[in-house]
């Protein structure tokens, strides 16, 4: 009978057995448990059914709503536009600043002369 403090551990172990994730030695241990204990056998069968259902749902390919794709692309377009606009205005600003510095340099040179 499965019970007591290690119940959860045994439950996890039978799950790993059903998923074929145990080493050969561990597999043998769980197989022995299943042979000895009808409850362990019932759990292993339940796990197999559950994993088969999970796998079956995993095979499904839900249709992606077109709105998801449209929204993603639209957001990227808007973001790219603002990114370009930002680059453009930053470039213009830098050019003006450069011209202003150059102008100040000329004035300083003129007044020194």
């Amino acid at each position, binding site marked *: 009978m499965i019970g007591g403090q290690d119940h959860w551990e045994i439950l996890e172990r039978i*799950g790993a057995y059903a998923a074929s994730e145990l080493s050969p030695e561990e597999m043998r241990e769980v197989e022995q448990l299943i042979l000895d204990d009808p409850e362990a056998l019932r759990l292993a069968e339940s796990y197999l059914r559950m994993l088969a259902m*999970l796998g079956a749902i995993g095979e499904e390919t839900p249709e992606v709503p077109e709105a998801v794709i449209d929204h993603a692309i639209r957001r990227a377009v808007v973001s*790219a536009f603002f990114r370009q606009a930002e680059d453009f205005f930053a470039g213009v600003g830098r050019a003006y600043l450069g011209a202003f510095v150059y102008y100040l340099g000329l004035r300083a040179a003129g007044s020194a002369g």
Partner: protein
Amino acid sequence: MTFEDYNLTRRAARGDIEAFSRLVREHSGLVYRVAARILGDSDAQDASQEVWIRVWRNIKKFRGESAFSTWLYKITVNTCLSSYRREQSRQAREIGDDLSYLPVPPSIEDDPETAALAGERREQLLRALGRVRAEHRAALVLRHMEGLSYAELAQILEVPDGTAKGWVYRGRAALLVALSEDSLEGGSA
């Protein structure tokens, strides 16, 4: 990672909308599928949109050290877990109670009787999955629905291999318990 994906990510990182659009069209299935399985169909659309916004914002940071799909899984799972936590705290604030999430399955159009039975089991499983701790649920989805290895899970969930494995082990056991509780509640045990 395919050369095409790498090329598209590089172009998208330089602001190429066409390249980004192709990435979205080619990989939106993965994002939507994982979001639907972690959060349920009703929240999958919003989460998917958020994922793609994050991808666009962060694509420059993608260096091609892992497959693009691995990077995308990571962003999708993180977005879903954040969305789930936000929703949980909102519900806790509004109702003062911890409501479990009940995903809505899509309709099945096969033979009505088989479809009804399959639909019922499917609904039961997804309902039970919604009762599993969010991190464990994400690990289960990646392992048993997406068929990924523990090494891939660890990379996506950003935890050591042993933790990823532990989450799957615990998730499986918790799902089995939730399923049997659901059966008992439904009187079909």
